[in-house]
């Protein structure tokens, strides 16, 4: 199945609310070995002006990844998951994600470029709290190799 021709400019429904806990932030920080006290010590976070512990700068990928996964699984999009490579990723931070946030992401396709049998799909995921506060914009390019026979 080919990619949907009208993919560029399309926006997809918000991801289900994602609750961010202190434990998840600590587990993510542990996984990349980040020992910044802002990830684990609520008092240190408060002293730095945050209401609670904050997540490492790449933590928004957890929510962005859910948006990308749902987008790629959408049968109208025409992506075959095994043909996709995550080719780049960039985050623009409005404010650090913190424990207690309830987040949702809205993914949209900014552009689709064809290069040597590969479609480069540029996406933007706006990550907000369920109250509408912007926390991060995550930009990802997904490289989709044309399935054989197309």
């Amino acid at each position, binding site marked *: 199945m080919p990619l949907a021709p009208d993919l560029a400019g399309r926006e997809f429904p918000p991801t289900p609310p994602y609750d961010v806990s202190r434990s*998840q932030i600590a*587990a*993510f920080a*542990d*996984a*990349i*070995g*980040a020992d*910044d006290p*802002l*990830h684990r010590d609520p008092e240190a976070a408060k002293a*730095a002006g*945050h209401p609670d512990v*904050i*997540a*490492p*700068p*790449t933590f928004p*990928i*957890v929510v962005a*990844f*859910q948006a990308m996964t749902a987008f790629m699984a959408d049968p109208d999009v025409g992506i075959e998951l*095994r043909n996709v*490579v*995550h*080719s*780049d*990723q*960039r*985050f*623009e*931070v409005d404010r*650090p994600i913190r424990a207690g946030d309830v987040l949702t992401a809205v993914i949209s396709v900014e552009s689709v470029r064809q290069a040597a049998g590969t479609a480069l799909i540029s996406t933007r995921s706006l990550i907000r709290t369920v109250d509408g506060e912007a926390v991060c914009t995550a*930009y990802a*390019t997904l490289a989709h190799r044309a399935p054989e026979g197309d």
Partner: protein
Amino acid sequence: MASLKPDVSPEPAQFRVRRSDLVRYAGASGDFNPIHWSQRVATEVGLPGVIAHGMYTLGLAGRAVAEWAGGADRVVELGGRFTKPVVVPDDESGVVVEVAGEVKPTDTAGRLRIDLTVTCGEQKVLGMARAVVVHDG
């Protein structure tokens, strides 16, 4: 507190990456793609072996930037292109990823850009990797 200055390079950071780190990252991030933990699947899809999540490598870059900048809350922009895979062997020593940075001024007051060079062995593994950090100096 770190004090970054334009055109002064911070001390490069080295991070050892083992298979167990990838399994831990898979759990913490929710990315369970088997190319990051199964030798069988990785070689079936033509990779030389199990590779680190691109986001794991970018996460290490973010950790280095946060340490240089004096806190994770100082990183306002971070990104890169996943140009070469980081192949992680199934042994105790793993591989070492190095993150080096060059600090540049920006047009925005209180912001510095850090151009990142992220390597594994002699190989650059991220392309166009850069961060923007808040800076009070």
